[in-house]
Every structure is written in structure tokens, then in C-alpha cells.
């Protein structure tokens, strides 16, 4: 059970390591994902899915976490949904600039 405005440790390795405004390197996220065991990978996938589905993060929290100031909560979750698909379903990388304030 993930608390509101918190991030589990392994998921944080993806967001703080590859998806921050200061060091945005989304295409390299797979190096960490591939390092994870299948078990951890599955867990991380579930965690992000849960965060997006239950909208557990506020815009303010995301700003502190990554340095990105999103236009709105809606925009932020659209982006996060895109990120989920990009990481776990071979989707296209969402353009962060379209969602930023």
C-alpha cells in the first residue's frame, strides 16, 4: 500500500535517477530496469500503475520529486500514464514540455 505523496525505493531509482528536470535521461531508464530482478521489475510496474490509477501524487509533490512543475494534476497524470507505457509497454516517450507549466 503506497501512501499519498511518497515513492517506493525502487521506483524512486527510476524517477530520481532518470526523470528529473535537472538530469532528464528517460531513454537510459532501461539500464536500471534491466538491472532489476523480474520480481522487482514486476513490483515497480505495479507501484507506478497504482500511483497513476489512484492519483496518489500531487503536483507539488511531483515538483519536489523531479523539479518539473506540471500544468495541472490532469496533465501530470497524462504524462505519468505515458511514462508508464513508455517504460513497461514499449510506448512512445511523452513530450514533457507539453505537460509543463
Amino acid at each position, binding site marked *: 500500500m503506497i501512501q499519498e505523496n511518497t515513492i517506493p525505493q525502487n521506483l*524512486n*531509482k527510476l524517477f*530520481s*535517477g*532518470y526523470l*528529473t*528536470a*535537472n*538530469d*532528464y535521461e528517460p531513454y*537510459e531508464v532501461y*539500464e*536500471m530496469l534491466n*538491472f532489476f530482478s523480474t520480481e522487482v521489475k514486476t513490483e515497480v510496474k505495479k507501484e507506478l500503475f497504482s500511483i497513476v490509477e489512484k492519483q496518489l501524487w500531487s503536483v507539488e509533490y511531483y*515538483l*519536489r520529486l*523531479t*523539479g*518539473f*512543475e506540471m500544468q495541472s494534476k490532469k496533465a501530470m497524470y497524462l504524462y505519468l500514464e505515458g511514462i508508464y507505457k513508455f517504460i513497461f509497454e514499449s510506448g512512445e516517450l511523452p513530450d514533457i514540455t507539453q505537460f*509543463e*507549466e
Partner: protein
Amino acid sequence: MNPLQPYQVTARAQKTAYENTGEFGCPTGKCTMPVGIQFFYDDPLETPITDLGINIITKQGEAIVQGPKTESLLTRGLQDSDEGVEEIRQELGGFSHSGIEVKNSPLSIETDYDEAAEKEAWEIEKNIVAGLHTVEEAMKTKLKPYVAAWQKDGLSSAITAYNSGRMKGLQMWWDEETDFWNTIPKVAGKAYDAVYDHYAENPWRLFGPYAAYEAATNIWDSIGQSAAQAAWGKMLQLSALMKALLYGDIDGVISNLKDLTGLSTVEGYIGEFGKMLKDALDKGVEWLRDMIEVIRRTPVFGLIARTFMRIIVHMTPNFWAEGMGTFEGYIIPEAIIMLISSIIAALSVGAGSLVLALRCAAIVKKIRLLFSGNKALKLMGVFMDAITELVNKVGKLAKKLRQSIKEVEENLSSAKNKAIKMVEVRYFKRRLNKLRHHGPGAHGVQRHEGEVTAKMLDDRCLHGKDPMTGTTTDGVHGGNHGYGKDATKINTPADFVRAYEYIIKDPSFLAAKALGEPKIITQIPMEKIFDSDFKSRLFGRTRVGSKNNPSHAVDTVFPDNTELFAIFKKNTDGSYYLYTMYPKFP
């Protein structure tokens, strides 16, 4: 002549005692050899490290001589600034022993490191840093009425004065304070020169008819017009000296101090300052030794310089006008000279160089007299007193640092009587440079260390300009530069390196390293690294407005739970290097 005190006799006797150690008149005397060592810093003056406790260790690891001190001025019956110091300078910092048995070689000589002294030094440092934060906040509050009045008067076109270089070396400090000066409204159509000339010729007409005039007259009489102008003529060097202190640049500190000895030919106490400085450099050893050790191992002078200059540049022209009735700010060099004299006095006290300390104290006392009279000058006096009180703690800090120097010279052989040990003075700078090029794409130093100016931080958080390139092109990958709402840095090389060294010993880092993760992310509370008073060690600018519609930037307000965020990347050989590191909100 004063009789020698017991400690003075002991100090003088040590050299003879060890140099004549051995067995005399024994037909089967042991085969002994002389051993010697001399400790120097590698600063431009090659300052000897005197009064440094040492131990001589045998190849078996046994300490056969414990605790003697390297030769100091005291052993020659001298102290800093005495006649005769120049002649013996190169002989100081050494220790020799003539009676070491050859069977014990090769020998090692290690400094008599005192762990408790190191802890005490850390406590003193934290105390000074906390005090600086308090002084800065208190002064900003006290200066608010002047800032408000200046804004209300709308005479701000004269701000151009600060940006056009009229204030000489202070320009480099104003660049750090863009937020403050940008809040002062610009008044269209008022050319700087007209305003400047008007103030310069008739300052009292605009700012308090009598008080300012009177204050100005008193100050000119007190300093002496030509001396004040001479001091003003050294404003570039004074400002550069403060910058050198900020960046821990020992070469810059010494070269600017040398340059300021040029003031020795002018009248009054500005001239006394020049003469004192000349003697302190030419005939000084132990205050220099302590200054170098403080710069080498702490950010204290840097943070003092930074706080001091931040307050000075937050003083609006009406403050100076009220204070002394002129725009040109002649009194700023005097304030810096007072600070420098206070620093040398504190170091001299710590080093036991009382003659030099008294000379400095006399200069401080005379300059301090300037800061009385009207409200603005009194406020300046309060500020100078608060800073001086903190500076006074530096002497004790230096002493504790000296007692906790950790150096070893190994493999001293009988063939070499005198080994020269050059102790690295660019300790943090050297380590910082290593971190600058720690691995592919490393950019922590380039974007988040003290030499990144406030202007560069503004350009980053407002316009996405990378401090590495000065443009929106990223200095690491060549694409568009990524940036957030906050652009933050660690103020001094010493703290940047210490923060890094803390992380690589932290269990969270070690655990991730053991796992072999491709990237290690660490987030450690600043409080854990620097204790609760860490805020003076950090600086940042925060964007007001969105990325697409930025308005301006303000100083970042670091919360108590601010973290040190760092990313390490893995080298092909499996080792890790620092990719980036900066203060971040949790």
C-alpha cells in the same frame, strides 16, 4: 627585558636536546644515525609548519620518539613580525634527532594527530557558520527600512552605477545579488550620470541635510582624504581578496594581500594597515600557517567573506549617503580592511603572536570609531562588531586544526638527513578538480559548486541556460538543457568535497555499490552531513512564475529537511564516479 617563562625555556631547549641525543663516551656505542624532517605548505610563500607535534615510528611500528614539536618562532625567541624572522624562516618547521639506532630504519615520521582536537575544530566551525547565518538574517531585517525608502524615492536609475563598474571591484559581488537589485524599480528617463553627479556633489541635499554632511566631514577628517582615496584605489584588490577567500584560493589570497601592502605609504591608519600587512607577510610565519590550515580544511573564511559582502551589497545608496554623505562608498574599503585586520588579529592570537595581534587590534579599533554618530553608521558598527566576534573564534579553530593535521612521511633512510614534506594547501581545490572530471558527463561541480554565480543560477532556472555553456545547449549531451524551478549550489569547494566524502561512506551508497547498480542515487539530509546550521553553506535561486512564463528569481529558502541529492554512474571497470550532486528539497 622580560624574564623567560618556563614554556619559552622548554621550547628553546627542545632543539638542542634532540640534536645532541645519544650516548657519549661509550667505547661500544650503538650505531646511530641522524633523522630529520621539515614540514612546509606548498603555498606561494612556502610557509613552514611550525609547532607541529610529531612521532618517529620504527619499521616495526613502534613509536620511539613521541610528541616533540617542529621548530617554531618561539624556539628562537621570536614571534611573527619580529626583526630576524626573515633570516631564519627557511629553517623553521623542522625537527632533527641525532640518536636514532640504525637498526630501526627505515623510519616513518607521522604527525601527532589529535582526534579530540579535530572534533573541537568541527564544533567551532559549526558555531561560526551558525553565527554567520544569524548575523545575515538580522542585518537584512535592519536594512529593510533603507531598501524601502530607496524604492519609494524612485531614484533607482543610479543603480546603473553599481552595474556600470563605478563601484569597481564590488561589481563582482553585485552580480551575486541580482535578485535584490532587480527588485529596485527602474525609473525611466533618468540617466545615471546626472543622478550620480548630483549626489556626488551635493549628497546632503538629498539625504538628510545636516547629519550626512556632518558625518562626511568627520569621516574625511578622521581617515584623511588621500588615505581614503588610496584605500578606494585598492578596492579591486580588496574585492578580489574576498573572492579568493570565498573560493579557498590561497594563491589569490596571498597575491592580493601582497598588493595591499602598497598602502603602507599613505597616511593614517590606512597606512598603518599597509605597514602591518607588509611586516605580517615579510616577517610572519605562524599566523600565515594558521590561515592556510583554516583555508585548507574548512570553508570558514569563505563563508565569512560571503556573508560580509552580501550584507555590504544589500546596503542601498541612501544608507551610505546617510552614513557618510557620499555615493562613492569610500567607507567600504575601510570596512573590508577592518575585517582583514580582525582576521589577522584572531590568527595571531591563536598563534601566540601578540605583537602582531596588538597592531591589528589597534587598526580595528581606529576604524571601528568611524562607525558611530548617525543611525546608519551605528548600524554598520553593530554589523562589524557581530562579524568581528565570529572572526575572533578563528584563532582557536586554527589551533585545533593544527593539532589534528594528519600526515605521514615514510621510508626515511639514514642517507637522507632532511626530508622535505610539502603539505598540499590546495587540498579541497585539488579534490574538487578531480570531481570536475570524475567520469563521462560529470557535471556536479560545473553546475552546483561555489563558482557558479547567482546570475548563472538565475539564467538556469529562468531561461534554461546551462552554467557549463552559458546557452540553452546542454554541456553534457549537446541537446536542450534540462532545468527545474530551483537552481542550487554548495557555496565553497571545502563543503562540496566534504559532502561528497560523506556520501561515499554512507551506508545507502555502500549498499547500492555492493549491489552493482548501474546508477546510484543518494538522498541524505543536509543536517546529517553539516549538522543543523547548514543553511549558510548553501545557496540557490528559485524561479517565480512558470517555465513558459518566468517572472524573476528569488533566493531559495532551504527547509530544515533539505537533502543532498547525488547521482553516481558506473565506469566500465565497475567503479563509480560522481555524475552530479546538489542541495534539493525532499
